[in-house]
C-alpha cells in the first residue's frame, strides 16, 4: 500500500519534472532561440513609425482674407448600447427633438432610428457628418450626449477638410487639389497651380504605445519633423472680386446667356484683381462651371481690330486722315460676305471713324488691300507683338492662341480678310485682355500675375516681381493714335459704346459682337467689351465676355457686355477719392474775403 503510494508519488513527481522541464525549455526557446523574433513582434506592436502630415498652407487674397484654408470637421456617432436604461428612457425624446431641429428633419424619424439602433445593439450610429466646431459645441450639450463618451455613448471623430470661405465667389479660380489613386496631384485653379507651395512635406515620427491607447514619441535620430505648407498670397482683391461676381451674374441671368466671364487686371503690374466665370446648368441656374476666362479660346471678332489697326499704322499703310471706302457695307470674298452692322455701310471714312464705328468692311478693305500680296508681314507683326504665344500662366488649361500662317496647308484667300476682323483665329479672354492692357500700360505687355508673395512656415517671405512679355508692342506714335481711337469708342457720341460713358471718369475700350456657330443654321453671338479706365491714367483693364445671350433680349457687345464693364469700373473707381488741391495762400485769401464780407454786412 505504502509502496503503491510512493510509486504514484514518483510518477507524479517525474511528470511534474518533465512538465517543468518543458516549461523551462519553452522559456529558454522564447527567450534565447526565438528571442529576436518575438522581441521584434512585440516592438512592432508597441513601437510604430507614424507619417505626420503637414498642415496645408492657406490661400489668401491680397489683403489677407482667407480664400482657402484647412479646418477640422467632425463626424458624430453614438454608442446606443452603453447608455443606461434610465437615461435613455427619460431623455431620448428630447434628444430626437434637438437632432431634428438641428438637421431640419423629422423628429419621429430620428427617434425610430435611434430606438432601432439600440434594439440592434448598434454601437456606432451616425448622428451628424461634417459639422464645424461651433455646431460641435452645441451638439455636446444635447440630452444624453452631454454625459460624454462613457455614460452618453458620444463618439467624436475629426478629419481635416479644406474650406473656402467665399463659397461660390471665384470658386473655379480658387479651385481645389486632390490626390488620385496613383498618388498624383490633380486639381484646378490657384489651389492646384500653387500646390507646390501649399502642400508642405510629410514628417516621420517613431512612437511607443503607452497606457490609455496613447502614443509617446521616442527620442531617436530617425524622427523628421513635417514641414507645413507655405501661405500663398494671391493678387485677387476680394472687394473687386465681389463687385465683378455680382454684376456679371446679374447680367448673365438677365440675358439668359450660356456662359460668361470677366477679368480685372491692374494695368502697370498685370496683377489679376478679379476673375469670374458663370456657366448655365440644365435647370437654367448659373455657377462657376469652368474657368472660361483662362481656358476657353474664342474668336475675338471686333476686339481684334485693334491689332489690325496697330499693324497698319506700324507699316505706314495708312494715316489718320486717309479715307477708306466701306463698300456700301458689304464685301465678298470667294462667295463669302463681310458685312457691316449698318445696312449700306458708312461711305468713305477715315480709320479713326472705322474703329469708332467698328466697320467690318472698312478694316477688312484696309488690311486686305495692303497685305494681300504680303500676308507674311501681317502675321509676323502679330508674332513680334507676342500675342500668338501662350502666356504661360500658373493656372492649368490655357490653350495656345490659334493664328493661320501663309505656310499652312489650310491658308486660303479668306484667311487674311477674316483675320483682319477677328475671325479664323482664337484667343482666350485673358490673352485678349493682356494685349489691351499693354496699350493702357504705355506699350509694355506684362504677363498676368496671380501670385503676390509666399510666406514659408519658417517665416521667410518671397515676393514675386512682374514679368514683361514685350517692353514695347508698338511705336509711341501708333500708341497715341490707338489710345485716341479706344477713347472715342466710348466718349464720342458716334462710338459703338457711347451708351456706357461714365459721368465720373473716362473709359477707353472696344466692343465685340462675334458670331458663333456661323456654320450652322442658328447663329448666336459672343458679346465682348474690353478696355481700361480711367483713360488718362489707366489703373485697371477689364474684359467682359457673354456667350450666347438670348438674341431676343440683346446681343451687341455694347448692350450686353458694355454695361457690366461700366458698372464694375464705376464701383471700383468710387473707392478712389478725387483730389482737390488748395494752397495755404488760397485758403487764407478765401477766409479773408469771407471775413470782409461778414464785416460789411
Amino acid at each position, binding site marked *: 500500500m505504502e509502496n503503491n503510494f510512493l510509486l504514484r508519488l514518483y510518477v507524479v513527481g517525474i511528470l511534474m519534472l518533465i512538465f517543468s522541464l518543458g516549461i523551462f525549455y519553452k522559456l529558454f526557446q522564447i527567450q534565447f532561440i526565438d528571442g529576436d523574433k518575438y522581441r521584434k513582434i512585440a516592438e512592432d506592436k508597441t513601437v510604430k513609425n507614424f507619417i505626420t502630415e503637414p498642415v496645408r498652407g492657406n490661400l489668401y487674397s491680397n489683403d489677407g482674407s*482667407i480664400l482657402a484654408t484647412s*479646418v477640422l470637421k467632425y463626424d458624430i456617432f453614438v454608442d446606443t448600447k452603453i447608455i443606461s436604461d434610465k437615461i435613455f428612457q427619460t431623455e431620448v425624446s428630447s434628444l430626437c427633438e434637438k437632432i431634428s431641429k438641428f438637421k431640419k428633419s423629422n423628429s419621429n424619424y430620428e427617434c425610430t432610428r435611434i430606438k432601432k439602433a439600440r434594439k440592434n445593439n448598434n454601437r456606432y450610429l451616425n448622428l451628424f457628418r461634417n459639422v*464645424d*466646431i461651433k455646431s460641435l459645441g452645441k451638439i455636446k450639450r444635447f440630452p444624453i450626449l452631454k454625459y460624454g463618451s462613457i455614460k452618453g455613448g458620444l463618439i467624436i471623430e475629426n478629419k481635416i477638410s479644406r474650406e473656402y470661405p467665399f463659397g461660390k465667389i471665384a470658386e473655379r479660380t480658387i479651385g481645389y487639389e486632390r490626390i488620385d489613386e496613383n498618388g498624383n496631384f490633380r486639381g484646378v485653379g490657384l489651389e492646384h497651380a500653387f500646390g507646390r507651395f501649399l502642400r508642405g512635406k510629410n514628417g516621420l515620427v517613431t512612437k511607443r504605445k503607452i497606457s490609455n491607447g496613447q502614443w509617446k514619441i521616442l527620442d531617436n535620430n530617425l524622427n523628421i519633423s513635417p514641414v507645413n505648407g507655405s501661405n500663398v498670397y494671391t493678387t485677387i482683391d476680394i472687394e473687386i472680386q465681389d463687385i465683378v461676381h455680382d454684376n456679371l451674374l446679374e447680367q448673365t441671368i438677365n440675358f439668359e446667356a450660356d456662359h460668361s466671364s470677366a477679368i480685372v487686371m491692374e494695368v502697370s503690374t498685370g496683377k489679376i484683381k478679379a476673375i469670374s466665370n458663370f456657366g448655365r446648368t440644365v435647370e437654367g441656374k448659373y455657377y462657376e462651371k469652368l474657368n472660361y476666362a483662362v481656358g476657353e479660346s474664342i474668336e475675338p471678332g471686333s476686339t481684334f481690330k485693334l491689332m489690325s489697326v496697330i499693324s497698319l499704322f506700324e507699316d505706314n499703310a495708312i494715316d489718320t486722315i486717309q479715307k477708306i471706302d466701306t463698300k456700301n457695307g458689304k464685301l465678298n470674298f470667294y462667295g463669302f460676305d463681310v458685312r457691316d452692322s449698318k445696312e449700306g455701310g458708312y461711305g468713305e471714312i477715315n480709320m479713326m471713324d472705322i474703329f469708332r464705328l467698328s466697320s467690318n468692311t472698312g478694316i477688312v478693305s484696309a488690311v486686305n488691300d495692303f497685305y494681300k500680296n504680303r500676308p507674311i508681314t501681317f502675321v509676323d507683326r502679330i508674332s513680334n507683338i507676342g500675342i500668338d504665344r501662350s502666356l504661360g500662366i500658373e493656372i492649368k488649361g490655357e490653350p495656345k492662341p490659334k493664328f493661320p500662317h501663309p505656310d499652312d496647308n489650310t491658308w486660303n484667300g479668306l484667311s487674311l480678310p477674316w483675320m483682319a476682323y477677328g475671325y479664323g483665329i482664337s484667343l482666350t479672354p485673358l490673352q485678349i485682355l493682356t494685349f489691351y492692357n499693354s496699350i493702357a500700360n504705355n506699350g509694355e505687355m506684362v504677363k498676368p500675375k496671380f501670385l503676390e508673395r509666399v510666406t514659408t512656415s519658417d517665416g521667410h517671405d518671397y515676393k514675386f516681381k512682374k514679368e514683361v512679355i514685350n517692353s514695347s508692342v508698338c511705336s509711341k506714335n501708333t500708341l497715341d493714335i490707338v489710345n485716341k481711337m479706344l477713347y472715342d469708342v466710348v466718349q464720342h457720341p458716334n462710338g459703338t459704346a457711347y451708351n456706357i460713358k461714365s459721368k465720373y471718369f473716362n473709359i477707353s475700350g472696344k466692343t465685340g459682337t462675334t458670331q458663333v456657330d456661323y456654320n450652322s443654321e442658328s447663329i448666336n453671338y459672343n458679346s465682348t467689351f474690353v478696355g481700361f479706365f480711367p483713360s488718362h491714367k489707366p489703373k485697371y483693364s477689364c474684359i467682359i465676355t457673354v456667350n450666347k445671350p438670348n438674341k431676343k433680349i440683346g446681343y451687341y457687345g455694347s448692350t450686353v457686355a458694355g454695361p457690366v464693364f461700366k458698372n464694375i469700373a464705376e464701383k471700383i473707381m*468710387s*473707392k478712389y477719392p478725387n483730389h*482737390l488741391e*488748395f494752397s*495755404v495762400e488760397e485758403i487764407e485769401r478765401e477766409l479773408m474775403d469771407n471775413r470782409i464780407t461778414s464785416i460789411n454786412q
Partner: protein
Amino acid sequence: MFLFFLAVIMIYSSHSVDTKIYKLNDLSKKVVMVENEFIEKRKEIVKIKMESNIKIQLSDRGIAPSLNPPTKIVITKE
C-alpha cells in the same frame, strides 16, 4: 535598498512623463480647436463684410453703395 529606491524614482519619473504626454495631447487638441474656432469666426467676418451682403442687408432701408467717389482735399504749402 538603494536599488529599490532607484527603481521607485524611475517608475515615478516614467509615470510623470506619461502624465505630461496626456496633458500635452489634450492641450494640442484644444489648440487645434481654438485655431479652428478662429478660422470659423474669420470666415463669418469675411462673409458679413462683403459689399454684396451689406447691400442686401441695407436695401430695405433704401441705402445703396454710392457711385460718387469721395473727394479728398489736399492743402499744399505753395
